């Protein structure tokens, strides 16, 4: 996480740093998105967690759901799982080890970056992904804001 320390010596610098913090904080909010063509309107964090952890194969409205991940080690991925499922990268790896080696499923397909996830989700109402809030556009619908 980016840390900003406000130095009392220069007001201007302090103001700039504050602005930078605020901007970063906003940019770092994540949203869970589905296609604008999907009939899914909003999801609870537990429902999102169940889909991304391979525990629920459908959206609550009955439509088949397929999750998309961002690459390993990215801020988006680590923060999404920590905030929505409470799992650190190591716990998430342990979870998927259980799933894969018991034949219960494979982890979500990975796409590189917010734009790639947004484009794939926009094109297919069965997909669900997470992107930075700033990357939102009308092709996708926000179903959960991740603070």
């Amino acid at each position, binding site marked *: 996480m980016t840390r900003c320390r406000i130095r009392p010596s220069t007001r201007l610098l302090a103001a700039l740093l504050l602005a930078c913090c605020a901007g970063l904080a906003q940019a770092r909010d994540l949203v869970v998105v589905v296609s604008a063509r999907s009939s899914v309107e909003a999801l609870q964090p537990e429902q999102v967690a169940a889909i991304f952890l391979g*525990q629920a194969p459908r959206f609550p409205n009955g439509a088949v759901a397929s999750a998309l991940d961002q690459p390993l080690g990215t801020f988006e991925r680590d923060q999404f799982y920590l905030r929505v499922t409470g799992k650190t990268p190591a716990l998430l790896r342990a979870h998927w080890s259980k799933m894969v080696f018991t*034949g219960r499923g494979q982890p979500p397909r990975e796409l590189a970056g917010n734009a790639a996830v947004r484009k794939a989700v926009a094109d297919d109402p069965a997909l669900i992904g997470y992107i930075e809030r700033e990357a939102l556009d009308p092709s996708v619908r926000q179903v959960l804001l991740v603070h």
Partner: protein
Amino acid sequence: MLFPSLAVLPAPACAGALLLVLAGAACAETGTPGWTFSGFGTVGVARSDERQADFVASVLQGDGAGRTARWSRHVDSRLGGQLDFSFTPRWAAVVQVVTEQRADNSYQPRLEWANVKYQVTPELALRLGRIALPVFMAADYRKVGYAHPSIRPPVEVYGVLPLANSDGADLSWHWSGDAMHGITQVLVGRTGVALFDGGRLRGKGIAALSHTVERGAFSARASVLTARMSIDVFPGLFGALEGFGAQGRDLKHRLDIERERATGVSLGLDYDPGRWFVRGEAGYTKVDGYLGSTRSGYLSAGWRHGNLTPYAGYARVRGVMPHGPHTLALDGLPAPAAARGAALNAALAELLMRSVPSQSTLSAGLRWDAAPDVALKLQREHVTTRSGSRGMFINSVPGYRSGRTAHVTSAALDFVF
């Protein structure tokens, strides 16, 4: 011969090379939707100060730490590789091969899983082939060290029914409610595993039902398994009993395990909100024969501080002898018959001491998630055998003294790829 080179090369090295070849091939193919390769492994050493028997992670091993050697690398070390194929969105197949020390001390890889899956709907799947038995919370992934907080699942619970997989079919139903979801699985099949001394364990008519529920940080699994079991490790003893008149035949009939009913029931609960976890399981097994019945359970907990997870637990198994007398009545027999009978009684007592386990383990350890996909663990256990049995130890010396505490120290490096 699937792995002919194993006869000459050190087995782990060979299996490792095989998996690396597969991994290399898979890496070249990453991105194609057709198949994925993944694997897991553990490099472990264990030390036990009990010199009269070997400490092992599974009674299906050849030797362990303590009697054979103070330090053993065989207790926890293993390597597994898995190929997942998906042909269409509905048809998939999986093959998992594991190499670990077997009863004959070799590391010959074993086909752990090999099945074809047909996804009838996103919720309902049918599998045909070799499938891991869904008993206990973690039985179907118990060899994946990385997925466990501790070095190994408690032997008191996971070691009592040494059936790992079955050849047959299963149906699993994935269900979801508002906040709760889970899997209900029904399985039928049969199995055969090699035991020590060239013996085999066979399970036929296996039927199992498992029900897993997850709700947030909470998960639970209940399972029931039944099979007709045969174990032919002691043909000499039971043959001799058969020749020892009516009471010998009666003893053989009650104690020998030949197509006998075996039952296992378990209930496990797990609460894992992320910062800490606590889990407990209770199990009951019963085999109509010399294995008798067991009640077992454990409770363990851990706290996660960054990459470090200290944990502690207590596990116990209590074996109950099969009903009825376990010795031949020798009063009034002519001297040669009485001598033969006394030898058979001694052999029977030894058999029951080895087969009906009672022991408890107090353990504490530390897991360090040193790197992505790698965990390093250090664990200390105090294992006390009870009720005149050798507990879950193997290779005990004649005249083994039960009731003592073995101090076991283990270190393991777990990885997944």
